[in-house]
């Protein structure tokens, strides 16, 4: 087997050195009747060429050749080959969690730079070294708010990503948290009147997403003011990080839970991505996840270590702030490299291209009879349109034209079956937008 570096003779030499007659002897502590005496029924072994062939065949059964208008928490953005070049350096790819700081300074400094970039983006003071993804980061932010306030009621906007809300419910069920949803207003943002009606001094956190799941940008500063009156914290979830290249950061939020996928990570059918929690300095000791900090060595040289580990499970066990151990370090590195490449100007330009393309797409779609913009709040690169018929049926017809249509909001919102969430990024060309608009017009002109 090509991955195993031993010859049969070496195996015999090693067995002899141990004083064992056979390899079987080394497994004698496993009761005989539980030892397998037949080979596992697994296909293979396969050569490298065969492995590649298998996956190429599977890839061909997927969506290659289609143009997509899907976003809804996973976005297509330009990536540089530099990012993958760095990620595939063995010193990053095949190293462990940097507990041994002296031979992990590369990873540690990169984490420190990641934490800095996340603070700069979100307008927060401190950011951790990553969570699994945006959904679990949002849930962990809620658990953090519970610890900080000692309260157990959570108000979450219905316009937060449906799967993020589902994950929160799974975790909350056994943590004694009471999760209540707050509806959306006519313009697509959180219904502030409804929020005020249920916001009492037993609420730990108000959770919103911005831009929210309908694409609407939430008035974060105003919501923070509302939440803070009875002493609740404001948690802002962000699924589309590129928006922060054009949007005011949610600096008034107490905790930001962000998905970093937009920054250099491919959609990869939903993972691995990079969640992050950013917050205020004064809350850092209740933050979950790893943190890298700057310090000095015994000779006064600057260096980095994992720090504040007394929050973590390997030290605190059942009293830890979270059970997270393995995180998404390599994905966080991808985010770091990608954002460093983009830089200030690249991110700004990318964000502005998204703004321009999405508005062009909306204008093209609005020309089609019966298609109208559903919500009036400002948006970034996703917007909701109402169609004269079910989005599901429309999408089935678009597929024939090699177009993966917009997200069907009816999947998660029964009242919105005719509503489509359209996403257009800098990767969508003008001609693709025009082809989509033409195809949609044709579909809608056909009788039902």
């Amino acid at each position: 087997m090509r991955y195993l570096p031993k010859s049969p003779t070496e195996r015999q030499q090693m067995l002899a050195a141990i004083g064992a007659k056979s390899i079987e002897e080394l497994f004698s502590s496993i009761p005989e009747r539980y030892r397998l005496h037949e080979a596992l029924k697994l296909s293979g072994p396969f050569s490298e060429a065969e492995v590649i062939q298998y996956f190429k065949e599977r890839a061909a059964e997927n969506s290659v050749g289609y143009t997509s208008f899907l976003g809804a928490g996973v976005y297509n953005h330009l990536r540089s080959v530099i990012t993958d070049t760095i990620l595939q350096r063995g010193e990053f790819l095949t190293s462990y969690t940097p507990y041994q700081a002296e031979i992990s300074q590369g990873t540690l400094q990169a984490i420190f730079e990641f934490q800095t970039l996340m603070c700069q983006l979100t307008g927060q003071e401190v950011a951790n070294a990553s969570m699994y993804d945006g959904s679990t980061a949002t849930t962990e932010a809620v658990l953090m708010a519970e610890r900080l306030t000692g309260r157990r009621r959570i108000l979450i906007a219905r316009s937060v990503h449906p799967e993020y809300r589902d994950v929160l419910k799974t975790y909350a069920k056994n943590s004694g948290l009471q999760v209540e949803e707050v509806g959306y207003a006519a313009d697509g943002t959180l219904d502030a009147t409804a929020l005020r009606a249920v916001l009492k001094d037993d609420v730990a956190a108000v959770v919103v997403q911005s831009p929210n799941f309908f694409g609407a940008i939430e008035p974060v500063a105003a919501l923070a003011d509302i939440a803070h009156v009875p002493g609740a914290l404001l948690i802002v979830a962000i699924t589309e990080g590129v928006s922060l290249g054009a949007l005011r950061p949610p600096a008034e939020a107490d905790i930001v839970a962000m998905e970093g996928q937009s920054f250099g990570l491919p959609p990869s059918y939903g993972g691995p991505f990079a969640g992050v929690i950013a917050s205020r300095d004064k809350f850092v000791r209740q933050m979950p996840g790893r943190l890298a900090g700057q310090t000095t060595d015994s000779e006064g040289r600057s260096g980095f270590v994992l720090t504040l580990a007394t929050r973590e499970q390997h030290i605190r066990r059942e009293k830890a702030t979270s059970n997270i151990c393995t995180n998404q370090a390599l994905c966080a590195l991808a985010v770091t490299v990608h954002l460093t490449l983009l830089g200030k100007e690249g991110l700004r330009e990318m964000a502005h291209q998204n703004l321009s393309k999405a508005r062009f797409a909306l204008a093209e779609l609005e020309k089609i009879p019966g298609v109208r913009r559903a919500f009036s709040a400002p948006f970034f690169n996703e917007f909701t349109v109402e169609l004269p018929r079910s989005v599901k049926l429309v999408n089935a017809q678009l597929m024939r034209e090699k177009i993966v249509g917009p997200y069907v909001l009816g999947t998660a919102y029964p009242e919105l079956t005719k509503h489509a969430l359209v996403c257009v990024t800098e990767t969508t060309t003008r001609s693709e937008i025009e082809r989509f608009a033409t195809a949609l017009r044709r579909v809608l002109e056909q009788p039902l």
Partner: protein
Amino acid sequence: MTDRIKKASRHTNQNEGLIFEKSSPGKRAFELPPLDVPAVDPAKALGANHRREGVDGFPEVSEIEVLRHFTRLSTWNYAIDLGMYPLGSCTMKYNPRVNEFVARLDGIATEHPYQPQDLSQGCFKILRLLEQCLLEITGMDAVTLQPAAGAQGELTGLLLIRAYHEKKGAPRKKVLIPDSAHGTNPATAVIAGYEVENIKSESHGQIDVEKLRDQVTPDVAALMITNPSTLGIFEQNIPRIAEILHAKGALLYMDGANMNALAGVTRPGDFGVDVMHLNLHKTFSTPHGGGGPGAGPVAMKKFLEPFRPVPILVEKEGGRLTLETVRPDSIGRVKAFSGNFGVLVRALAYILAYGPGVRQATEDAVLNANYIRKHLEGVFDLPYSLPSMHEVVFSDALQKKNAVNTMDIAKRLIDYGFHPYTTAFPLIVPGALMIEPTESESKEECDLFIDAMKSIAAEAATTPELVKTAPHTTRVRRLDEVAAARKPVLRWKPSAKSNTAD
């Protein structure tokens, strides 16, 4: 000193500051294709309230500076690609590059989780085949690939157990956890809404079966066991342990972190385990990447299947696969979308390369651990003498006499060109040296490691200061962790002079 160190020699490496310090306005490393639609005015599009000019402090550097920056940083890391990484309990094995290649293919990396299911059959087949392989390897009946890492797998497993008990009337109150367990076990039990009751190991480091009989009350939901234990020893009484639990209606959870000792040799499903997680970033070689990403699939017996987290992969007539999101008894969703799909792809590529040959990998892993044990026994104290599987745990008791502890030895190992073993874990061994070579090490590399450990043991006796002040050859010496925690500096901030514009 240097002639004793065979594996490594010093060489120059590059200094490199923080990327923010290299920044100079006007430089850029990324150019976009020209905008092909009319440009909108952001202030008009968003409204003045929502608009931002640019991210303050973001780096402005060129492409070569970015490439050099991260390449330089990378050279400061140790890695499996450089040599043996004997971290006990972490299974740092070779990460085959074909796995990276296939995970990046068009049609794999490019796929969107909300694309139509008819355009996702390739993804579904990958998930299906991986499920089947993991069921065959574990001997279990059903599996979920959703959890993002081992700790989330543990949580998923305990939530399955909780849902099962609830369905039978009450969730029960407690989870039993041995004192040798990973810290994630107790931390997870709390999130699942359980009280943790620690159980003490008996003198051989195994579970005390007689005591367990008394501890399993009707309040106990489950026992979380790691097998082989964190001492690298197979828990021989596991079938009896399972019987005791089952007699009281409690379940047996197995932490599969040490599955690299078992794959192809024995199956947890056959020896009484009800539910377990696997760490694909350990046993199945997906790269650890400096701390993640991982994947923590959970395999279970038939009776737990109805509680699996959504989405669930289902086969329809004609072999068409579909993901279902509605299940009445499901514990719900533990992560958005379909697990860490890209990690699952890599794990399947690994399993396909081996096929039934995974057994050979297991055998070589156990062979390496025992070979190292044989050569270091007597040089280092072996607190538990039962047979070792894939890892061996020594203690620093012999070196302590010269005030040299496990951390010192670990740091000295760095000078010898190795990554340290796991220090000070498991907690039941004071001053533990936990060594897991994995199957990826040749006899030659194992011999170098043994030589290094013997040499350090000699130094500990003759020149203890040399060991206690190690490492001597790294870019930085031991770092002040106390200061780091007391006055945390967790981000870069512009200094006053470069910050005049703000």
